[in-house]
């Protein structure tokens, strides 16, 4: 089984979010970038397929050279090779089209992506990619087993979960549950050394066009201070929620 894991290069959750150039660009100054958490759960599940079922695992990112340390981290975790499509990621459709080319050229059976990236939160690349490839698609995937060309997956739904059966080729939008937080791997020194020697292929884009343009950004209005209620006067909270906030 050939697995491709899509890796988004995103600001660490604790990053301060600011914009530059007249609020048209994300300010990367001082920002620490990481593997998108939803993708990391998928990558870790892919490692299980590699170790238990002999799958090969490659990783891919659509982005500039600045995303390479994030791909190297994925290699250090255990991926075999990395591919970077050398173009700025503009929107979901453009990224999906670039990824579709990589999947077709590489002949992958299973593509594991995260349900959404924590930067632009589009939540659309996995579904678009599956549809462009005419592959099967399971979103919000919290469990995945593959046996030959058949697959069993569990999808999180509003208020519960749903078990589905499907087959390869398959694209999933994965999330926590594919593996647990405690299963995530911190690259060790050997992994980091080996990652330096693994192939990181840079391929030129197909120049797929974007369909949406994020022209400007803004931050939410600053929030007022918390209104504290005395622990001995809990009734006041009920009063405030009813008369002031009007939510009960």
């Amino acid at each position, binding site marked *: 089984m050939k697995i491709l894991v899509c890796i988004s290069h995103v*600001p660490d*959750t604790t990053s301060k*979010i600011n*914009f530059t150039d007249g609020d048209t660009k994300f300010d990367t100054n001082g920002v620490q970038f990481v593997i998108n*958490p939803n993708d990391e759960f998928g990558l870790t599940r892919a490692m299980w397929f590699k170790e238990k079922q002999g799958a090969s695992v490659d990783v891919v990112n659509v982005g500039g050279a600045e995303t390479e340390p994030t791909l190297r981290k994925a290699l250090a975790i255990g991926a075999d090779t990395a591919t970077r499509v050398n173009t700025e990621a503009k929107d*979901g*459709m453009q990224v999906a089209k670039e990824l579709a080319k990589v999947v077709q050229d590489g002949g992958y059976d299973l593509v594991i992506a995260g349900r959404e990236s*924590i*930067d632009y*939160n*589009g*939540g*659309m690349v996995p*579904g*678009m990619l599956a*549809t*462009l490839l005419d592959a*099967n*698609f399971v*979103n*919000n995937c*919290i469990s995945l087993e593959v046996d030959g060309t058949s697959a*069993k997956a569990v*999808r999180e*739904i*509003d*208020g*519960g*979960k*749903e*078990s589905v*059966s*499907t*087959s390869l080729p398959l694209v999933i939008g994965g*999330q926590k549950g594919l593996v647990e*937080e*405690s299963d995530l791997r911190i690259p060790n020194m050997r992994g980091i050394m080996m990652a330096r020697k693994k192939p990181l292929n840079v391929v030129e884009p197909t120049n797929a066009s974007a*369909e*949406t*343009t*994020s*022209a*400007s950004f*803004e*931050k*939410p209005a600053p*929030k007022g201070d*918390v*209104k*504290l209620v*005395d*622990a001995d006067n*809990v009734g006041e*909270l*009920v009063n*405030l*929620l009813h008369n002031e*906030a009007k*939510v*009960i």
Partner: protein
Amino acid sequence: MSVLVYTESDKGTFKKIALEAASYAKAIADKMGTTVTAVTVNADDTSVLGNYGVDKVLKVNDSNLDAFNAKSYASVMQQAAEKEGAKVVVVSSSADSKYMAPVLAVNLNAGYASNVVEAPSNTSPFTVKRNVFTNKAFANTTIDTDVKLVGLSKNAFGVVENSASATEEAFSPSLPESTVNVESVDKVTGKVTIADAEIVVSGGRGLKGPENWGMIEDLADVLGAATACSKPVSDLGWRPHSEHVGQTGKPVASNLYIAVGISGAIQHLAGINASKVKVVINTDPEAPFFKAADYGIVGDAFEVVPKLIEELKTFKAQQ
């Protein structure tokens, strides 16, 4: 030319997000000087949609659509959009709609903007404001394609009454072969889900153990709320994963979010920030949640929560 909206139902009854999506579609239709057409799948009485601005209902009834299937539902919406010549299609942010929308976007060659929080500021170019960086910022995004697909954030636009009388038309689209088949569904019944809840009551490690969750459930019961928990609580196995809210868990966009014994790690706050009013109850006045909350009580949850339940019962009895 009309604005097309997918109005989701559960066991034949429309979800609140469906009425919100219809209200939103009406706002767009007014700006564009056109009408609203809703698509329903296996819904019973569709007349209620008229109260939210829907002019026409394409009613699909097909037992092959009893279980949700992204490919089939996207095909239904595509055929409806083509039949109506719709240039704008609106869906909600339910798990099902978010599953279907990217498939539909490819089928319709439509640019897709998700997590949209307001009516378009302009319809040419078609410009919407959407949540990005997990509720830490907004992007003003134009959709540059001929057909536009808008995914509306939950509880952002609100349900707006707009009296019209909807005409109903039976619609029987052809369905693609299903290659992802539902084997079983494990869904909590009789409880408010986090996705649908107006109020969410959430517990953290400050509750010391799963045996203390009774008061969280009691508080949720008196408020008609859903229960949720922080990541450490689900990692420790005190509560099921399905209750974990936060960046890697479920997003919450309720009217009221009450956090009990949750310190407010940035990953947690990112997931619940779209809630309108936030209340924190915590012994530690330095807990970061107090910076994110609208109302707070510094105190021991084991004393405060039972008192709060009593006060709420008294309040509810007077209503």
